[in-house]
């Protein structure tokens, strides 16, 4: 090829590429789609495929992070809870809050470790995650041992089982059942029968919060519930205005995060009338981890009030003073990161 033809070829190729892309951009914006589209729409450039290709290459080159998530062994996803995100000040304040709850309100403390603590060995090498075990031990060693339910140990014992969803950061129904057993044992409560071996599958197309990470080939989870919790005649009052029968919210299976099939997420307080003739009531200070555990707690109480800390914006101490009556047990039921995240909102003197 002569020099001139060589130059013509180069110009032609580069100009051609720019023009093809420009034309595609034009069509995507103003033509064919009927309404104004966005350049990079899948149908034109298969954006998702490109992103996936780049993601896979970076995964091959050792990248183990995507946004706020770690990609662990076997492609398992973990929400990031980095050590740097929890200051010494937050930890001290959280200890103060836990202490106040335990001492002034005789609360049981159930702090649930998240998946990155229980399946630590599956995390990417050297991932600098917050040491939840050390934090729980700190609570244990500062005089809160009597109030603290050791959920971590029981979950560690069952670590080979599916304790957390693949497509969502929440724990599964079976994990919450094991935690419930630990709580029951610690508080010497009466035994009620739950059939672990014959749970009921609600859906096998559970796609939780991680489903938004389209670069990953995440297989859908299955969502189970215990049969014994399904047919009980319970009445749930959401924010004292909406009355529902039963713990479960099938609408979340179709639209939204299916995890909220357990009780939903559109309330600040949920009052559950269990229909049982019991002396006591329970006040739960919790986050979404509490949703799937409440059905196990229900047989022990006449009524359960669940204060959803993910939506609650008021003064916790004022609420507790106003709501808790003499026959009430108090339970703090949150994930460790969830508890630490809301510490900024809980002022103590």
């Amino acid at each position, binding site marked *: *090829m002569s*020099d*001139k033809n*060589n*130059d*013509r*070829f*180069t*110009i032609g*190729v*580069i*100009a051609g*590429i*720019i*023009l093809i*892309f*420009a034309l595609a*951009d034009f069509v995507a914006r103003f033509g064919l789609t009927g309404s104004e589209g966005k*350049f*990079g729409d899948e149908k034109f*450039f298969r*954006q998702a495929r*490109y*992103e996936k290709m*780049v993601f896979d290459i970076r995964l091959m*080159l*050792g*990248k*183990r*992070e995507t946004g706020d998530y770690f990609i662990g062994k076997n492609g398992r996803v973990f929400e990031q809870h980095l050590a*740097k995100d929890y200051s010494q000040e937050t930890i001290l304040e959280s200890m103060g809050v836990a202490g106040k709850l335990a001492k002034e309100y005789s609360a049981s403390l159930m702090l649930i470790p998240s998946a990155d603590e229980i399946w630590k060995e599956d995390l*990417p*090498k*050297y*991932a*600098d995650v917050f040491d939840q075990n050390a934090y729980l031990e700190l609570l244990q060693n500062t005089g809160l041992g009597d109030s603290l339910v050791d959920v971590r140990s029981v979950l560690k014992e069952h670590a080979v089982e599916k304790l957390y969803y693949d497509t969502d950061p929440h724990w599964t129904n079976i994990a919450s059942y094991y935690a419930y057993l630990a709580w029951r044992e610690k508080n010497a409560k009466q035994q009620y029968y739950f059939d672990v071996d014959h749970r009921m599958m609600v859906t096998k197309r559970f796609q939780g919060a991680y489903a938004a990470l389209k670069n990953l080939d995440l297989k859908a989870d299955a969502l189970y519930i215990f049969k014994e919790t399904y047919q009980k005649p319970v009445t749930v009052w959401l924010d004292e205005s909406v009355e529902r029968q039963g713990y479960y919210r099938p609408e979340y299976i179709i639209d939204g995060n299916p995890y909220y099939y357990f009780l939903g997420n559109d309330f600040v307080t949920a009052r559950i009338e269990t229909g049982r003739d019991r002396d006591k009531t329970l006040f739960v200070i919790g986050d979404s981890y509490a949703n799937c555990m409440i059905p196990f707690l229900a047989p022990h109480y006449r009524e359960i009030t669940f204060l959803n800390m993910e939506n609650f914006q008021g003064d916790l101490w004022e609420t507790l003073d106003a709501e808790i009556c003499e026959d009430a047990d108090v339970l703090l039921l949150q994930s460790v990161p969830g508890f630490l995240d809301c510490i900024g909102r809980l002022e103590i003197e």
Partner: protein
Amino acid sequence: MAFDSIVFLLRFLPIFLICYYVVPGRMKNFILFLGSLCFYAWGNPFYIVLLLFIATTDYLQGLLIERCRKRRTAGILLGNALVIDIAVLLFFGYADLGIATINTLFGTALPKTGLPIPMGLTIFTLQSMSYVIGLYRGEVKLQKNYFDYLVYLTLFPQMLGGPIVQYGELEGRLHDRRIELHQVSRGLQRFCIGLAKKALLADILAETWKCVSVLDIGGISLGTAWLGIVAFGLQLYYSLSGFADMAIGLSMCLGFEYPENFSHPFAAASVTEFANCWNISLMNWIRKFVHAPMTGEKCGGILQFIALFVSGALIGLWYGPDLTFLLCGIWMAFFYMFEKLFWGKVQKHLPGILNWIVTMIVVFAGLVFFAGNSLNEVWGYFLAMAGLGQGGLADRRFWYLMAEYLPYVVLGVLLAMPYLSTMANKMRQSKSVLFIAVYRLLEKTIPAILLIVSLVKIAAS
């Protein structure tokens, strides 16, 4: 309008280039002027007035300087032109820095102007100053055609990050120019390489730096600190040199030839060499219009010292109105001077690799000023780089970041070295038919592939 945006690449550029090539010779300047104004107006249309004001005043002062040549009035006119240029530069670029400094020093509460910095302010004012000073010195000819001067000053390719094109470098091509096929072909190739540097390399290195910069500076380890600052330096280099490559490529397509702005600065084995390879057009401008007039022909002693520090400070401030940029410039000037006075003599007896390591330590330490938000942060980072921070030598975060980003940092370092261009030159000059064929093939395919990947990446993000 950024070069690495869809608006520029797929809308502005094709339409502009088609119009530019279709119109006959004398109309090209009109299209170029119109295109440049559109490009400039995209961010803040108000500042077009500022750009045209600078162009018009310096053009008129140029006419007067020429008319009063060999008279004392010419010097006054030059002074007048420079005062206007510098006043505009200081007011629109550095007023808020000045006010903040006064408030800190004297405890006052003067309100800031809050004006956004006009795009390319430090480029077009320096370019315009190069014209009036050059004209006064008799180094360039008077530009009688106002429109040609407007075209020179508003040229869009260098507006984002340089190079600073002195009037003398474009003088001969402003009114009329011939566009060669070979020039366009090379220009497009250069543009694609620049785009890939910015879109593919700089962005991922910026991600690495971001992971380090969000950490508590007091707690980072020596390894993390060095990994972070190397990633920062490389991303800065690939951003600036990527923009410069795109500007140079575009200038070739338009029939101009901009000067080179970077020449493998991270391969430098001395601070002097680094200064000669980094933002070359800015260095040349400062050398010619600040350093040389200050020191005169017989330079030496204290004057040389002062001129060097003033030059360093100005170079630092060119990058932005921040005290840390100023200190970065002074840091480099100090080591430049140190090398001239003492270290240079020692350097001659040291192996090249050792000189390179020492130079890189100085350069990357200097870049900490550039990256830091405050002096406290800079000091904390220095401590970490020296292994005196609370994080020790290497913590979990370091090993984690190494596992995540090492391939990109290594790739960034390798591509910043002159190995590839040396290899390409050898292949091009080779007498072997095979080498020439491979070279020709790669020369055509690599820019095209880089363009496709960059465009898809930009579209996807």
